[in-house]
């Protein structure tokens, strides 16, 4: 069990370390967001006193990176199937639960490395508060956000028969989750319909928790944030494991 998880984790790590261009690519996009939006909207942005737009979206951009990286990681099961490698894994004398655990831990690791790199960039730019408790809290939130969305990605992949559904997931799951999370705009004073949509979105609580951890303007209680996120994460993992167990080889 442990050695299976380690084997799959090791594979994710090897591919991550090897593929530097992919890492650069996945970091360039959030940094572009941060710099362009952070600068472009700074003049319009009026929120709680002393909070610039760049400061506001910083934790949101980390959340975005975790969301994308984790979902893609989960969905990579689809590519493994497309290229046949999934068969090699599924015919081995190991349980599917341990396969999923390995995939999850591997992807969570790579997602968190990206999240931490961004966090370092934000800290260097002076956009977040840096203290020990805050950093630890941020790591906890990053972990739970990532675990939740890897599981969701695996669940989505298990339901799809081929990678063509990938665009569908992108447009109808990943993008709405990102835009409706309060990563880019404050949740205060938005219309009722939008407020409801943001409140049923688990990422909202993840980003709110990150704002708390990093000294940004947060909305809900951090304990509530963490509790909701953890419940969602556990449910997503169970659903993902259930669907993955039934996925044909």
């Amino acid at each position, binding site marked *: 069990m442990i*050695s*299976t998880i*380690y*084997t799959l984790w*090791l*594979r994710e790590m*090897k*591919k991550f370390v*090897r*593929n530097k261009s992919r890492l650069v690519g996945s970091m360039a996009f959030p940094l572009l967001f941060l710099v362009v939006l952070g600068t472009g909207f700074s003049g319009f942005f009026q929120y709680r006193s002393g909070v610039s737009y760049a400061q506001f979206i910083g934790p949101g951009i980390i959340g975005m990176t975790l969301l994308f990286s984790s979902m893609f990681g989960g969905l990579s099961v689809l590519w493994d199937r497309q*290229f*046949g*490698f999934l*068969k*090699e*894994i*599924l*015919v*081995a*004398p*190991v349980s599917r639960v341990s396969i999923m655990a390995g995939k999850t831990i591997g992807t969570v690791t790579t997602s968190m490395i990206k999240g931490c790199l961004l966090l370092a960039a934000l800290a260097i730019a002076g956009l977040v508060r840096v203290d020990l408790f805050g950093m630890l809290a941020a790591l906890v939130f990053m972990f739970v956000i990532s675990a939740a969305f890897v599981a969701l990605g695996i669940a989505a992949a298990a339901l799809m028969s081929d990678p063509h559904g990938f665009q569908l997931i992108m447009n109808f799951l990943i993008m709405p989750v990102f835009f409706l999370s309060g990563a880019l705009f404050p949740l205060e004073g938005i219309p009722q319909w939008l407020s409801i949509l943001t409140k049923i979105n688990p990422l909202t609580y993840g980003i709110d928790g990150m704002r708390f951890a990093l000294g940004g303007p947060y909305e809900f209680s951090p304990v509530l944030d963490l509790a909701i996120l953890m419940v969602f994460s556990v449910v997503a993992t169970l659903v993902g494991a259930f669907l993955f167990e039934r996925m044909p*080889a």
Partner: protein
Amino acid sequence: MCRSLLLIGGCPVSAVITIDALVKKFGGVTALNEISLEIEQGELFGLLGPNGAGKTTLISILATILKQTSGTAMVCGRNIEREQAKVRKCIGIVFQDPSLDEDLTGEENLDFHGRLYGLAAAVRLKRIDEVLELVDLKDRKDYLVKTYSGGMRRRLEIARGLMHMPQVLFLDEPTLGLDPQTRRKIWTYIGNLKEVFGTTIILTTHYMDEADQLCSRIAIIDSGRIVALDTPQRLKARLGGELLELEVSPPQEKFADELVAMEGVQDVALENGRILLTVNHGEAIIPRVFQAAQTFGVAITSVSMRKPNLEDVFIELTGKEIRESEVAEPTERMRILMLRRRR
């Protein structure tokens, strides 16, 4: 389990695979229709048949990645349903489609496999060395699989299937989409496996020459049934004699009717306007056929004589030409094209 063999002197302990009335249905379509079969330790066994005959389905069930509709099978003395993990440990499988991680090196692919099958670090290192040696890939082990040619990938997959020293190795269409030269090379490696490790090998193919060249015993499968089971030599001997192939000017049918009565002619068939004769002592019959043609008033434009091959056996048994079904299935053709493009 081995009732039939009891008659000829006891149940052999050497049966490594026993298949008993295996049925697989996909919706309304019967892919396997009561297959029963025994494969002995150390055999190089061929499953031969056109695409869609049920070969891959049978292998998938034996490898426990597909569940049968009814019937049972034992692999390495383990029940494929109740002792899945034990069956998986004792088999190796090379899938019909590519199944390597292209972003890892050859060695890393093998290492990954060894870890999944629970081999200790020292054993893993030793085995990687051994199997790479066997398929001649030692010098390429540190390259990403991405950079491998189609034949090298196939060899690496065969090596990987052997990593955990399986008792049984399944090879599903091991040379599909490869050029003739590479195919011959792969044949050599497969032959070596048996020699070096004594592994029992079950090979599926729709290439007649492949089955003929490699296998000690062949089951011909058509539409989910075993239509013949024997050594390649004995299967060919069934047809007897030689085959004469004639191209004649019309009316071919009437002339064919004429030939039925000729002495030494066992069988006459018409195929795409050509006349196929199964004969004894072909060299003596050819002059007589020419004589008959002259008397009958048709002109023979071409004549050839050859020994029957497995393809002829297949046509005889199933009434179809294996090549036709190969071309007729557009999805299969597309898949082969896709494989080639990727390689």
